[in-house]
């Protein structure tokens, strides 16, 4: 197996972050989770030229879990930048957000999101969701970055 796959979680809400950690932990997903608190931080984690370069993830994450409503640079803009950049054009991005608005779903897929999940209020459901997410994107799914 190649290097341990990492997750980039772009999430400004610390409650949601903690709940995600609990769910990952309980699902026995031990992969490293890097947190970005806003869109700008998310970009710094992906591109060395953003910020001072100290945050950049190397190798890049296996999957990005992206909230849409973010301070500074919002989720849609982050997604647009990821798809526009040759280095991250194929990076799997899963939108994880509170919104079930048709418009958000359409726009996300339109910008090239690989998947769209709505955060359920029921923690049990959230727990299941995170477990399945980890199963799929970290174990089953093959990413073109695996060799690097």
């Amino acid at each position, binding site marked *: 197996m190649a290097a341990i796959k990492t997750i980039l979680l772009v999430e400004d*809400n610390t*409650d*949601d972050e*903690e*709940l995600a950690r*609990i769910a990952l932990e*309980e699902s026995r997903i031990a992969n490293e989770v890097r947190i970005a608190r806003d869109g700008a931080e998310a970009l710094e984690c992906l591109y060395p030229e953003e910020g001072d370069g100290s945050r950049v993830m190397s190798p890049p994450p296996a999957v990005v879990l992206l909230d849409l*409503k973010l301070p500074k640079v919002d989720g849609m803009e982050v997604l647009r930048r990821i798809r526009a950049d040759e280095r991250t054009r194929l990076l799997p991005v899963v939108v994880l*957000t*509170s*919104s*079930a*608005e048709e418009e958000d779903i359409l726009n996300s897929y339109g910008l090239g999101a690989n998947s769209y999940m709505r*955060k*359920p*209020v*029921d*923690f*049990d459901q*959230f*727990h299941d969701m995170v477990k399945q997410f980890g199963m799929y994107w970290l174990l089953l799914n093959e990413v073109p970055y695996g060799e690097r």
Partner: protein
Amino acid sequence: MSEAFAARSTRAGRPGDRAAWRLRWLAVAIGGAAAAWLGSDAVAGGPGGTLPGVLLSMAGPGMVPPRGHAPRDGDDGGDTAPADARGAEQFRLLVQQVREYAIFMLDTAGRVATWNEGARRIKQYSAGEIVGRDFTCFYPEDAVAAGLPGRLLEAARAAGQVQDEGWRVRRDGSVFWASVTITAIHDTCGALTGYGKVTRDLTQRRAAEAERERLLEHTDKRMRELRCLHRVAEEIRREPPFTELLERVAVALPEAMSRPERTRVRIRIDEYGREPAEWPTTAVEWSEPIRINGAERGVVAVAYMGGTDEAETAPAFSDDERETIRALATALGETTERRRKTRELERYARELEAFSYSVSHDLRAPLRALDGFSQALARKYPDRLDERGRDYLQRIRNASQRMSHLIDALLRLSRISRQSMQWGPVDLSALAREVVQDLRDADPGHAVEVQCQPRLRVWGDAPLLRIVLQNLLGNAWKFSRDAARPRIEFGRDAEHPSRFYVRDNGAGFDPRYADRLFGAFQRLHSESEFDGTGVGLVTVKRVVLRHGGDVWAEGTPGEGATFWFELRPAAARKEDDGSDQDDSAGRG
């Protein structure tokens, strides 16, 4: 006869005009009669005319010769053939009885020589009063001053016959519109012996013609006016960009004016304006202010360009025209006001949208934390919590999940009000069967007998009507839970085909509270009895209202409930058209 006639009839008058034809005929006839009167050698028409013979023979033989008749000049009629003389007398009598035409003779100097009944009636003189007087007394002063009577006689003498239409004077000084034919009478040698004159009073006919012309013109103008206003109304309904609307109104307006090609229109409302390429400097102009909520916010100005004809350089605006301009100014004012309101509503709609969005995001995040950490607490520290503690955590979870459902229901409700209707044919029976199947799948333990009328087809928005049935059938399903033999019916009212009902034999409700059923968060049963958000029936009402109908319910506690809804798509589409257009305008 016909040859001579044809020759004469080409001399004057419009061919095909029956009245003129008859006048000419009479004039020729009187010429013939006059010839007999004035002497056997006299010939009507120009030199060489042959009419007297024709006319006299027409009068026929066996007539009594004139008695007591004194010929004016010549030879006592000694040479006149008796038959001709009798015919002439007969004809003279005939002419004298004619009432519709003034038929009389003038001598060569223009003095009245004979008179008839028609002349008496039209000109009001008796024969005794007028015979011997100069015929200029029949003409208005200005015509006499202009030398018209003399010119007419001269023309008749030169051409044989002359026709004229114009004002003539009666004995009492009143005027009438006359059609006049004067025929010169010559003797066999070609010497002028006098004139035959036939006059007809056309005053009434002329008045009728004038009235008809006026009516025609008025009708035509009214039609153009209506077309113009119709076009403007169409444009307003179409809601083009404002500058385009002004342009189209300005182009349509001239049609309603009496001189379309010379009409120029200038419109200004607030910052919008429409100026024509040329604007007259001196011509008549009419300005109508455009008022919005009583305040003057613009103006419609209409002007006529001066024509080449001096008399028409300054035509005034008629009352009708001013009324049309006023109507347009009012319509433009109201349109502007309506557009302002639409823009305001669009702004509110956008705000509401933003609000819904933030509700769906921001209000749910704390609920996730409440639910998630309660659950985490229960799982991670099971030893430190007793039964009661776990119950409290469960209550926190229940409450947060419940609030999450409420938020979702409210968002759905607002979405139903916002989204535009997608009209089409809908099979309610098929929808109901699908909904019932979903209910059975979700709750297989609840055995309900469902009767659904087949082929209930309506015109509406299928996804929205599905929500109606989901709520009504879902309620019936839920509230019939405790019935001994649960039963649900869905059908159409036999007498009112636009009315549908969902009936159950479940818990029912107290009819005193029926009006509270359709209010937001209103519940007639406690949550411990039946769960639900309290938004379902509000949603049903919203959807049915958007279908132009209404909802109501009948119920008896313990015996069941019947929920009615009426769909009137025709009424709804009229109202919805406007709002849907607004929607698309907002998105565009």
